[in-house]
């Protein structure tokens, strides 16, 4: 009997604690407004963000910022925001957004209009790719925070050993890779991300764009164009015809490709800029042997990289929109972007930072990425993107595993996407 009383008491206390933590009273005791900032977990030291928050608070003594960290994976964050924002949550004010969610969140009315925070002259200072996404119907709904794009990494030691220069076209890449593979047994030619997930879309789109194709054009689905068919066929041939890409690429993600490449077991790799720091680590077997360039394209077309990166937005249900705007402006400012670039290694969205001497000196890699980011292109900017992505993921996967030919896959993708978009409109 006594034990059960104790147990009840215990449960009661636990519940008390559980509920008291949502009590809002403690937040506004000293007339300061508290805004909550949510963002995905950083790879690395979170200290710079905390430093920035402190700085913001000392600049704005009437605002307090509480930062809350979400898990690193995009899907989990998306799920969190969707569930909370659908319920009209006011628990957070400022949050970071993946580039692919923005049209969807705008359409849902979850993002506050930030046009006044970002006047036209300021917009020009940002890269064009992210701005294309941030602006919907002539209004600005999010501010580009940091940027990402696909890069081609190559083993410069091997290329120069056999007298090659970095490939400009995909055919050149295949040629170089197969030549070197012949002379260096046991090495893989070209690694990229082929698992059925968002990363596969990022990869395949780069071939499609680099062959003059696209997915959506003026609201019409043009995914089954001859150019796209050719591009997708080439991706399949990388594995099944030319053999420069190993079959297991159908399970590969960013991390696993980086790991193999970092061991010195591949000649080329398509990856995001983050891989650079891993490849250049002190104990890395390929340190100093890696070069990078803009991705190749097909003859007659220019090269494009898939745009990645994160934005800052303000929750439309926020109780403190003005204070939140201030914070967003601060976090995306020149100073904050530069600090995050020098410390965490985020690539800034403000173009001028890339030309500054301390960035060029301490982060030559970042400075060189300027050209890549100029050619970064957003994935189809439509509120239906998540749906389109789901369809494309399985069709592209079916092509590269060899169980479907590009023509059928693209036709079926078109049919599905049109069906879904038909529902929405």
């Amino acid at each position, binding site marked *: 009997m006594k034990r059960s009383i104790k147990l009840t008491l215990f449960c009661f206390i636990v519940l008390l604690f559980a509920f008291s933590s949502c009590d809002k009273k403690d937040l506004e005791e000293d007339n300061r407004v508290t805004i909550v900032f949510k963002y995905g977990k950083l790879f690395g030291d979170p200290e710079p963000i905390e430093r920035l928050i402190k700085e913001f608070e000392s600049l704005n003594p009437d605002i307090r910022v509480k930062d809350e960290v979400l898990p690193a994976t995009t*899907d989990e964050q*998306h*799920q969190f925001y*969707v569930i909370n924002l*659908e319920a009209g949550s006011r628990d957070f004010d400022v949050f970071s957004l993946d580039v692919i969610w923005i049209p*969807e*969140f705008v*359409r*849902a009315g979850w993002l506050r209009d930030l046009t006044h925070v970002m006047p036209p002259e300021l917009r020009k200072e940002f890269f064009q790719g992210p701005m294309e996404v941030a602006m919907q119907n002539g209004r600005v709904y999010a501010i580009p925070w940091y940027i990402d794009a696909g890069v081609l990494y190559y083993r410069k030691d091997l290329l120069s050993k056999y007298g090659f220069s970095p490939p400009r076209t995909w055919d050149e890449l295949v040629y170089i890779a197969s030549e070197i593979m012949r002379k260096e047994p046991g090495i893989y030619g070209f690694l990229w991300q*082929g*698992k*059925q*997930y968002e990363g596969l879309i990022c990869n395949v789109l780069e071939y499609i764009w680099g062959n003059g194709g696209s997915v959506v054009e003026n609201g019409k689905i043009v995914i089954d164009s001859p150019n796209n068919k050719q591009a997708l066929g080439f991706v399949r041939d990388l594995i099944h015809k030319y053999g420069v890409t*190993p*079959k*297991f*690429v*159908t*399970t*590969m993600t960013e991390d*696993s490709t980086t790991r*193999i490449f970092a061991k010195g*077991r591949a000649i080329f790799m398509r990856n995001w800029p983050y891989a650079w720091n891993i490849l250049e680590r002190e104990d890395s077997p390929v340190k100093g042997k890696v070069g990078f360039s803009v991705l190749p394209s097909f003859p007659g077309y220019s090269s494009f990289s898939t745009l990645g990166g994160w934005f800052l937005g303000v929750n439309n249900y926020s109780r403190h929109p003005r204070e939140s705007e201030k914070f967003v402006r601060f976090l995306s400012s020149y100073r904050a972007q530069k600090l995050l670039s020098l410390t965490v290694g985020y690539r800034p969205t403000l173009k001028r930072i890339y030309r500054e001497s301390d960035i060029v000196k301490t982060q030559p890699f970042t400075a060189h990425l300027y050209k890549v980011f100029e050619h970064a292109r957003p994935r189809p900017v439509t*509120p239906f993107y*998540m*749906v389109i992505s*789901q369809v494309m*993921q*399985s069709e592209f*996967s*079916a092509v*590269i*595993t060899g*169980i*479907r030919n590009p023509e059928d896959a693209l036709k079926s993708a078109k049919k599905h996407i049109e069906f879904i978009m038909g*529902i*929405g409109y």
Partner: protein
Amino acid sequence: MSLYRRRPQIFFLLPALFVLALVMFYPLIYVLWLSFHRRFLIFNVSEFIGFGNYVFLFLQDERFWNALYNTLYFTVTSVFLELVFGLAIAVLLSREFRGRGGVLSILLIPWVIPAVVSAKIWEWIYNPDFGILNFILKININWLGDPFWALNAAVLVDVWKATPFVVLLLIAGFQTIPNDLFKAAKVDGASSWHIFWCITLPLLKPTILVVLVFRTLDAFRVFDTIYVLTAGGPANTTETLSIYTYKLLFHILQFGYGSSVAVVIFVFTGIVTVFYMWLLSRG
């Protein structure tokens, strides 16, 4: 008040019923209600379409049938293998020998490891480049990237993980069989095979049924293991109903259609449970 006099127990049950209603029946009915709607949150679309979702699901959605096939294949093969291996190991472990406890606890490790962690471990084991499985077998199979192997690889992980659970239940079942029966059979000169077939198996039947209920339902709803291993790829060849539902609901926010797939899962598991219960009640 008179009801309270006559049957006070009903009132004692009320709080529990209330909690159950809140956490079980309400979501259940809500999902059912959602499944009759076309609901696309982002576009503020929410309209009643009756059985529209179900018509599309059964008649036009190839992806649903693919997911159903994968789920059934996964359930049947993994449960069958778990039962066979579980039974074999349980028979071996039912005898007394030195270090039996130790063996049992080692055997339980796969079951104790959280599903996501073990799936992650297996992802490394299956890695076609530096995975240990290809290294040991001296072969080169693209376990998780090949449309044929991927689902079988997931079955193997589930068998590895759930067999200990089956063993545990079966050993518990063994203990309920009186030892005298075995002794008597031996005196009568029955072979071990005969003993297994005519004594062990029939008397284990209730336990086996319980094992089947647990494992079938778990396997039918499989999510975590496969999601971590392949996330449904390549080309949806490992996409089960749960993963499809998850993607519909949380990736592309089709709450109405996603709910109707969830309802189908619910009905299927319900049928399976009722079937097993019927078997159990027959003894």
